[in-house]
């Protein structure tokens, strides 16, 4: 392999890592909500989208991207908490079917509200100049600084989450709530408040992912749903309710999806020739991750990781 090809491969690996970290931010909260509250939240993708739009709008209005991220995170946390308190908390004891309906209704509403507020064309974010450059990670390997910051920041958030869940009282309550709701209530804890906190936390993380992704993929209506479905793949592989599982599964899915998109066409071209590659390649690359999920499940129906409330 030539050095150029290898460096390109490294770059794609970094992109895969970055995508994986974004997926983790979205699914960390989602897996908790699914595991602890037994609630299928299809609207998590909408919160991701809201984060992107609020950040993009605020950044272009004030020119301060950093503040935009903070505002976006706060906004999605608040919106998430409100939606939970006012509507979604009524569905915790309902069948999953009702939850799917309710959150699907919210997807329709959110997508259209975004269209009303910001139009159908979407918004882009222009990064502040200090972030909008490339750095040289290795001789010959330049990488966009922003993506690198994304990765580092994301890992920091992951570490923070780990500390929160594993080391704090709130985290203990969350873990306990996953296995025994009654016991937690018996401890005198307001379950409703705990659930709202978990939901809000998940929303904030999704908003963070959205606001950090806006410069990379730009904010567009309906951007949340494809990501949500990938998020479900992450949860299936990582195990419901497991943040640790979500972390590794997200990285795995991020890598495979990114590398799949980059190399599927070449791989097919190698085996089946270039005409096959150009006709089938582009669509197959996006499907790689789902085909992989299907294969994994066919072999081990329990998923790759044991689900633990951690």
């Amino acid at each position: 392999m030539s050095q150029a090809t290898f460096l390109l491969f490294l770059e794609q690996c970094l992109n895969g890592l970055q995508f994986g970290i974004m997926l983790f931010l979205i699914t960390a909260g989602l897996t908790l909500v699914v595991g602890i509250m037994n609630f299928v939240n299809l609207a998590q993708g909408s919160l991701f989208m809201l984060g992107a739009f609020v950040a993009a709008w605020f950044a272009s209005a004030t020119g301060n991207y950093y503040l935009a991220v903070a505002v976006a995170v706060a906004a999605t946390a608040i919106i998430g908490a409100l939606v939970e308190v006012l509507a979604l908390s009524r569905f915790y004891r309902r069948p999953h079917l009702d939850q799917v309906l309710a959150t699907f209704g919210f997807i329709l509403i959110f997508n259209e509200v975004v269209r009303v507020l910001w139009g159908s064309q979407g918004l882009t974010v222009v990064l502040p100049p200090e972030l909008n450059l490339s750095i040289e990670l290795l001789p010959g390997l330049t990488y966009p600084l922003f993506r690198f910051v994304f990765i580092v920041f994301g890992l920091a958030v992951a570490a923070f989450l780990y500390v929160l869940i594993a080391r704090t009282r709130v985290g203990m309550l969350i873990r306990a709530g996953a296995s025994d709701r009654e016991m937690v209530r018996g401890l005198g804890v307001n379950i409703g408040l705990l659930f709202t906190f978990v939901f809000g936390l998940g929303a904030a993380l999704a908003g963070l992912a959205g606001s950090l992704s806006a410069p990379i993929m730009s904010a567009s209506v309906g951007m949340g749903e494809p990501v949500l479905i990938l998020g479900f793949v992450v949860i299936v592989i990582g195990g419901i309710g497991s943040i640790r599982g979500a972390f590794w599964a997200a990285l795995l899915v991020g890598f495979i999806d990114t590398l799949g998109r980059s190399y599927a066409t070449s791989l097919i071209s190698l085996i089946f020739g270039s005409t096959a590659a150009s006709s089938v390649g582009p669509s197959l690359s996006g499907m790689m991750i789902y085909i992989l999920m299907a294969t994994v499940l066919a072999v081990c129906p329990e998923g790759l990781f044991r689900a633990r409330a951690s």
Partner: protein
Amino acid sequence: MNRVENRLAGIVLVLTLAVIPAIAFAFDAIFALTFATRILILAAAAVSLNLILGYGGLLSLCHSTFLGLGAYVVGIGGYHAYNDEIAWMADGFVQLCAILVLSAGAAAIIGVISLRTRGMYFLMITLAFGQILYLAAIGAYQYGGDEGMTIFQPSTFAGFALQGRFVMYAAAAIFFCVSVLVVERLTRSRFGLVLQASRMNEARVCALGYDPMRVRLVAFIISGVMAGMAGFLLANNAEFVSPIDLHWTRSADLVIMVVLGGLGIGLGPLFGTALLLIVEELASGMSPHWPIIVGVMVLLVALFMPRGLAGLVSSEKRHD
């Protein structure tokens, strides 16, 4: 519902369906006929979903995969018949056979993998599976890619082309009635008894020596094939096919149609589909931001009417 009520409902249904074209013609409202055709086709797809969702208790979010598969068989066949003069690819019998094989195969694969999982995993996995064909269609540039393609050569049955408003309406009406009849026979059969019992009390069914997974797999395959056939009509009726037919939101729409009408009610999907499509039609007339109206309605239904229209009528509680 006992047998007498069933027969009566069936007769009323057939009479109503027979009368609609006459009414549409009399009031010079042909668009109503086209609209009714679309309702009937989607209602038939919803009937097939009701088999696994309402009776079987399987929350599948990949039903559009089978619907869209059927539609694309018609589309691809028509494309090659029209562009490459391969006439047999637009032959209705050939297409239906292809749909039978392909949708049964797809349902078998998806079913074998996903039915081994429980609860929430099942719905997440079907949602993910639904992406596969959707992405394939988007990437199929030859067949229109993400814009879809017009079908210039409809399916033909021994020289007779499946087109024209009255023909399509008749086909849709007949297919719908057959679908309802098939599902009704299935759910009252020994197979249907075990399927429904598996939904109500899986532990009991296992303790009786059955394997619920096998029964569900068969139901899943039958339901997929029926949806594929509905897709056949869908494409011929619209003379157009696009990846939207394969999108997961179409699967969600079908779920809503089933829920609106009432889970596990034979004719429920007809009312559910009609209600949803009529609301969408009215809402889009009222405002360009009509998805908000539909979204709010869906949310309200989930909150207050989870058993659908049937739930408003009967007070029987479902113990699932």
